[in-house]
């Protein structure tokens, strides 16, 4: 089996599952309890938090646990809107965000906030000039993703940081769900960003756990109120087994990151340079440095994305249409739409997404199967 759908979700690593099991069996107390079970759980919770903080160069108190990327995005956006409403009601984001960001923005729009969606170029990227032009005195939040989940475009985070340095009071949120462990740490954890959100299951941690980096001193209102866990910012009994497992997964992910990134980039390019030689193929994530090393999106004109996905599945190769969330609906990719790609070709798009365990041999096998399928598709047309 070849699993090329790591942007949808990854398989939890065996070591990570092992940590989950051990913690579940031995450290199951409630970290808020004032007895040994609680104390032991609390210590492990804070050790895990420290490990994650160290791995991304943050402070202990800047790491907050969530139930995943979607919650983190909702929280960063709506939590800012609630906390900073008195300072303004204008929010800026991009046209290519994940629905977790996009739909949070749309909700706020209904609640009376004004939202500016920055347009993107043919590579799915916004421009710093557009951002600067969009900023108003009432702007309280800018939310930009690190890596687009559909085509792998990396937003110009350095330039965005430059612009926002001139507006120190605006909250800047980065959805880095697809960007962790992909050689982008310097860009994501820049000295200007205020909130960064992550989802564990995209890097071999369990489902249902994620974390948010929140710059010290920045205020945010809770989305989930109650018992006051996570420094009174995110209530709910902590998922310690998953948290410890996520700390483990992050350490494994970042261990030898540069080599892993290079390998993914090589695999991506091996496939890219193979499929681009076929006349009906359009590549959306081109061979340019502005694309992440692990995502390749392309279309075969005249063949529906789903047909391509199923055809590869017959060969035990798992790829996807443009993103898992929209896979079930028959809608075209919103990113491709924003890039003004023709609807006809957008419905023919598929995505390959790699992780550090994929191999060049898999790429070779993929290319071989691709040739076979391409000939079949050509006959159908």
């Amino acid at each position, binding site marked *: 089996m070849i699993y090329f759908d790591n942007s949808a*979700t990854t398989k939890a690593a065996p070591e990570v599952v092992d940590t989950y099991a051990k913690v579940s069996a031995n450290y199951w*107390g409630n970290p808020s309890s004032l007895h040994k079970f609680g104390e032991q759980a609390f210590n*492990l919770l804070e050790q895990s938090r420290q490990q994650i903080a160290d791995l991304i160069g943050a402070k202990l108190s800047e790491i907050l646990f969530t139930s995943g990327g*979607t919650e983190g995005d909702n929280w960063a956006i709506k939590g800012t809107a609630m906390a900073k409403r008195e300072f303004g009601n204008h929010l800026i984001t991009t046209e290519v965000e994940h629905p977790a960001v996009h739909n949070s923005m749309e909700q706020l729009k209904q609640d009376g906030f004004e939202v500016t969606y920055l347009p993107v170029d043919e590579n799915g990227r916004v421009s710093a000039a557009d951002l600067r032009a969009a900023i108003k005195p009432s702007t309280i939040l800018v939310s930009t993703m690190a890596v687009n989940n559909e085509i792998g475009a990396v937003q110009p985070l350095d330039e965005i940081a430059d612009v926002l340095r001139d507006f120190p009071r605006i909250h800047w949120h980065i959805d880095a769900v697809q960007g962790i462990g992909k050689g982008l740490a310097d860009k994501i954890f820049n000295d200007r960003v205020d909130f960064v959100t992550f989802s564990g299951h995209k890097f071999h941690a369990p489902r249902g756990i994620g974390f948010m980096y929140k710059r010290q001193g920045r205020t945010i209102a809770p989305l989930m109120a*109650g018992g*006051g866990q996570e420094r009174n910012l995110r209530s709910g009994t902590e998922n310690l087994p998953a948290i410890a497992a996520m700390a483990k997964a992050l350490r494994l992910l970042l261990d030898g990151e540069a080599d892993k990134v290079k390998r993914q980039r090589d695999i991506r390019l091996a496939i890219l340079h193979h499929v681009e030689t076929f006349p009906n193929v359009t590549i959306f994530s081109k061979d340019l440095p502005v694309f992440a090393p692990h995502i390749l999106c392309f279309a075969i004109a005249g063949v529906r994305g789903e047909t391509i996905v199923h055809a590869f599945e017959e060969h035990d190769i798992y790829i996807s249409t443009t993103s898992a969330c929209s896979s079930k609906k028959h809608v075209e990719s919103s990113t491709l739409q924003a890039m003004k790609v023709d609807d006809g070709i957008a419905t023919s798009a598929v995505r390959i997404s790699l992780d550090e365990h994929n191999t060049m041999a898999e790429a070779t096998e993929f290319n071989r199967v691709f040739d076979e399928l391409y000939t079949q598709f050509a006959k159908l047309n």
Partner: protein
Amino acid sequence: MQEIHIDNSNAVKEIYLDNAATTPMAPEVLAEMMDKMANVYGNASTLYGLGRQAHTVMENSRQVIANSINAASDEEIIFTSGGSEGDNTAITQTALARQSLGKHIITTAIEHEAVLKPLHALEEQGFDVTYLPVDEHGDISLDDFKAALRDDTILVTIMMGNNEVGSRMPIHEIGEILKDHQAWFHTDAVQTYGLLDIDVQRDHIDMLSTSAHKINGPKMIGFLYKREGINFPSLIKGGDQEEKRRAGTENVPAIAGFAKAAELLTPEAKAEKRARFHGFKEQVVKGLTDNGVDFEINGSLGDEGENLDHVLNIWIKGISTYVMQTNLDLAGIAVSGGSACTAGSIEPSHVLTAMFGEKSPRIAESIRLSFGQQTTSDEIATFVENVSAIVKRLAKNHSEVK
């Protein structure tokens, strides 16, 4: 990078009487989760086989859960990240969706913070919340409830059973009253799911929240039951998961683990559990009485099933919560000084305050025991011996100082 050391020898080997705070996962549940993490790792929303397999596991689990509360349809079950999310969603989203019908909400003074805090936030936004008082048993009065109900009441949120003192609320009666009223009826069943036989149709419940880690299931997974016809915008927006009612990649292993935990608690298993736990309560009361400990129950003992059988809150006269809790902890017995969910705080309990007033000595001199599947009668005997010994020792020290 330093490895965090986690091993099996670190397990605390103590008597754990704090199961209302959290419970250990049942071995069957952990096994189920391990299996699903290793073998069913597809994204349940993807098109291909791996995803469909995950989807099937999730939908089978949803059916098990729906049956466990006699929901009319499995579509009425929304998986959440736990009790707090269920409560926050049911309350905040209902209020926002229904404000054109009125701004009045009824609750009780002794709800969990996951209910109270969102209500406080709504009050700041102009909603009017009535907090029903409780008597010294932790019970509300139906007359108070009827008197509080207004034409513009849009939501009633009353817990099924209290986490600190174990009192049960008259859910069936409230459901009967509300069935012909516009107000939606939400109940926080975090402490009762897996203990009582819940029937949302019999009791006319519109929304109900639960949390798996209280019933030997995994942490940070729960469900919100939402009767068909009850609609509100999702609290967490994003992809179309959970029929657009809760976005986020579905946590299939935890959902499967939760269903397993629910499945283990058959009506017979629950009945056995209630009987056993009630027996523990009687054992504590008799033991402490026989040993001459001066104590009272906060709430009431009642008959089996009358209150939550796993929760016993006692006032040990003259000994502060903190002292008793630390002495017991030293002796290897874990109890709570109130609700653990008020993260690490030893603030006065709002539940005891509502029952006895803020001047009552009970507020600073009470502990909560809560039993779980692993609790044994021997452990209860050890608890009784230790409390009695601590009381004697402290009394002796006290008189020597004099």
